[in-house]
């Protein structure tokens, strides 16, 4: 893949600095503030108490691997 840089030099550096500044404000100010709002804080607390990892992409990233539950095991039941 070839890439043609869209910009370079001082204007590019300035744009990068602005973008980095915006991201720093969002991550260091806005999101921490949001984390303290009651509804968001409640959600985060519930997830942490349940040891749920909502950002898991696949099951191997979960805190607890899904296993056949005891109530399924009682009947199973691969082919009921």
């Amino acid at each position, binding site marked *: 893949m070839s*890439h043609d840089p869209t910009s370079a030099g001082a204007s590019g550096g300035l*744009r*990068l600095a602005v973008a980095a500044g915006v991201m720093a404000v969002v991550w*260091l100010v806005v999101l921490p503030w949001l984390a303290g709002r009651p509804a968001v804080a409640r959600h985060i607390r*519930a997830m942490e108490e349940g040891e749920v990892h*909502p950002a898991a992409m696949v*099951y191997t990233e979960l805190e607890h691997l899904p296993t056949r*539950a005891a109530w399924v095991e009682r009947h199973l039941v691969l082919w009921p």
Partner: protein
Amino acid sequence: MTPPVRTPARGLHEDWAAVLIGGALVALALFVGARGRPADDPGSAKAWPKGWPNALSATIDKPQTWSDSPTRAFVAVDKKDPAKEKSVALPIGLAMAWVAGILVAGAAVRGQAVRGVVPGAAALALLGGLAYLLSAQKVINHYNLEYPLWALVVGLVIGNTVGVPAWLAPALQGEFLVKTGLVVFGAEVLFSRLLELGLPGLLTSWVVTPIVLVATYWFGVHVMRIPSRSLCMVISADMSVCGVSAAIATGAACKAKKEELSLAIGLSLAFTVLMMVLMPPFITRAGIDPIVGGAWLGGTIDATGAVVAAGEMLGKELGDKRPAEVAATVKMIQNSMIGIIAFAVAVYWAGWVERGATGPRRSLAAEAWARFPRFILGFVAASVICSALFVVAPEGARLVEGATLGFTSRLRGWLFCVGFVCMGMQTVFRELAPYLAAGRPLVLYCLGQALNLALSLAMATLTFGWLFRKVVDP
């Protein structure tokens, strides 16, 4: 994705390089795991719930969730005793070294000059770490805005402001990293998981998913007339199978452009957040049976973590653990379908879509083989070998679990993360505009998801609510 980069005659093709290096990493994880076989009760899932300890796990980790200060991302807190903390800065640094090393090794086996790759590889690994750090912020993390999104953002910001520096360009091998990550990912895609919920789970996952995938793709290509078939396929796969991971696997199988993959991932993550928050209260208010509701969540919400989170919310509302268990297991079954679906998409693309584009020259099999993305063979081989080890004996299962949970799944995450930083750097904002024009990809996603919601609810009601109700009732 764009066609693989042509390499000098003496080097390996990008796909084979991914198979070689990815396969070697899986073999290394299994070898190290086997050497660490515990003396006591080695086959017991109770004694070793996350498989045998794997020494390689000490060499890799990712930033921990943080709220106010990013420095907390480098400190792991003991869940049982929050007063106990340990630094994970070293394994995070070593993880970056793994990725940089893989980039350099990839360049070597493909016949590239290694010296020119080293500085760029180190910088990309650091940028991958930054993307992981952004995704570990608690609000981001707990609302399922996964790391590929932030890796793309980091890459896009750099690529569209200062551009790609010349010294970094030789290391910019995002597709190689994603393909290597997919070969490593094969070890986690275990066919035996498909049977975890028996026939009801199979029906809910296996009947609905292919129908929705094929119907959405067909509708996008033939009714909505979206010009890019690969965009239709990636949107259909991420919406019907399991979100970002399915988009990555099928995107590589059908050679989707990086802009298409970025768009599909963005759509998937946006709808995942909405569905994760809205579906549990809807299920409760609508009076849907909790087990049926759990299966419905598992079959429709794209991302695995979001499914578990929604199942947990539903279970809390109802005071019942079963919805979360069913939701997670249905999604795990869908996770395990990725290998088969990626293989089928690669065969279809090589044998029909691309063959049709250039006109028949040779037999179907010869044409298909000529165009088939070879790295898919590595992905499927890793999946078949680890599945066989998993089912052959309890000790094999513990070995595979230890190797995948302790090492390969973490490494795969880093490879995808840095791969997406590369792709973001190579994407120009204005090239995304045509894909967003008229909002057709969004409409396709919404229509496909509507079909997915309707069919999944019908099948979950049929299986968990009626046909196999005895499995559900205490």
